[in-house]
């Protein structure tokens, strides 16, 4: 466990060195400016729009960090050959990979948490205390979605080149919001094809489960069952993806 944390700490520090958290400052400033600019133009919807767009930007920054940092995570170390130094220590490949994911998820958590705190302050200021519950829940679920995407990024990073990893991760991010539509399509498809599409709809991460933007816009609190299912799903999905990543990484020749 301590070995996992050591690798995670290293990954977290490396992400900080990449100045990922500078995004947070930019986000805060953009949100403040947006609020002031939109209020007179939005006919009574300025506060709603500031918070909605803030939440969207927060989600998009998450996928950008995953795409830029996560997909390069393992590949960079293989290319620089630093992975040989790391793996020559009493450290299994599994520990290394899980540590990388924990570090990346922690980085995402820190970035999303900091941006979420800024959004929460803005939300309370613009929409009152009723905004606390919806915003806290929405930010938490964004962090969970990012952890799932980080697991996918680690899987692709251990299998493929950074460019292809970015393509795969972004592809799954986009289709992750269409899983229920895929299931609908599958119903209209004949036998085997329908079964394949239906199977694919379960293999792709169901990102709509982590999307509470509508609830925030209308100041509605999601049920605790929703939050619990999202937490359970994120944990299981990330574990499954990391298990696949371990299988792929254990079999990989590191030259």
């Amino acid at each position, binding site marked *: 466990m301590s070995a996992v944390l050591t690798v995670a700490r290293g990954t977290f520090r490396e992400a900080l060195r990449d100045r990922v958290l500078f995004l947070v400052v930019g986000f805060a400033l953009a949100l403040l400016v947006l609020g002031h600019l939109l209020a007179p133009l939005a006919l009574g919807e300025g506060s709603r729009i500031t918070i909605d767009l803030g*939440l969207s930007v927060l989600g998009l920054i998450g996928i950008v960090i995953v795409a830029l940092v996560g997909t390069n995570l393992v590949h960079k170390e293989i290319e620089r050959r630093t992975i040989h130094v790391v793996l020559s220590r009493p450290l299994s490949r599994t520990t290394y990979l899980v540590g990388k994911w924990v570090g990346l998820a922690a980085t995402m958590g820190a970035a999303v948490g900091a941006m979420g705190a800024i959004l929460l302050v803005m939300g309370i200021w613009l929409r009152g205390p009723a905004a606390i519950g919806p915003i806290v829940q929405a930010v938490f679920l964004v962090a969970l979605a990012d952890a799932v995407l980080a697991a996918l990024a680690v899987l692709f990073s251990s299998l493929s080149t950074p460019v292809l990893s970015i393509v795969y991760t972004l592809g799954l991010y986009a289709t992750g919001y269409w899983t229920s539509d895929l299931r609908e399509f599958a119903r209209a498809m004949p036998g085997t094809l329908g079964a394949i599409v239906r199977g694919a709809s379960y293999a792709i991460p169901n990102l709509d489960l982590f999307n509470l933007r509508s609830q925030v816009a209308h100041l509605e609190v999601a049920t605790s069952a929703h939050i619990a299912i999202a937490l359970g799903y994120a944990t299981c999905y990330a574990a499954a993806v990391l298990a696949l990543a371990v299988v792929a990484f254990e079999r990989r020749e590191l030259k």
Partner: protein
Amino acid sequence: MTRLESHATAMPAARRNWRTIGLALGVFALAATAAVGQLVWSHHHVRQAEPLEELAYYPSGAWLSQAAVGERIAWSDLLWLRAVQYYGMHRETDNTFGKMAHVFDIITTLDPQFQNAYVFGGTSLCQEGRQFDAGVQLLEKGARNNPTVWVYPFELGFVHYLGKRNLTRATFEFAQAARLPNAPDYCERFAAWSGQRAGYEEVATQLWREVAETTDNAILRDKAIAHLRQLLKGSGQEMRLEAWVAGLKPLAGPPSAQHGSGLVPTLETE
């Protein structure tokens, strides 16, 4: 070694750097000026796209919902800003709102609970837009998507009463609104007045008063005040009306939407 190369190597490195930077800045200034100049020229000589023109090509809100990749709410917000811009521009110019029904349909498909879009879009289509059926359809869509919200039947009663003077339908809608959770007392009052065929001007005055007092939308309030001014013209109550207008809480909105901006009521009545 050529003459040029020998000259370059003879120059100190720092000076060479400054020369390159100076050259690059010069190119930047020239290129940027040319680009901006062409843009300004194009404003006068190339047909400019009308705001929201691109929306006419979007198949439907349902299609956009899929394309939004989890950002339906953010897209509905951005389209709301564009719709307000479109409304304001045409309100000040030609008073035609050809694409308004389509854009408000898209916004409310992306966010089926966007109350301000239904109310502002529905009432504006019925009034300035002179598309009564489209406005009613939008409000009915709001009522279908939010069956427990009293606002939609109330607004339907409002447009039927003021737009078509259809008192039977207005009474039905006001009564529907009164039955829904959290409906204010005035829903029942308007249902009763409308049902008893009370004086049209008095009821219209009360309806517009409620709009002006309860809306967060500066343009809707502005319209309500303009209607009230017209309704109370010559009644001897103008001073009281202006005092009441001055006491209303200020709303955020574009300068053209503040009190007394001169938006002329164009309620289509039969």
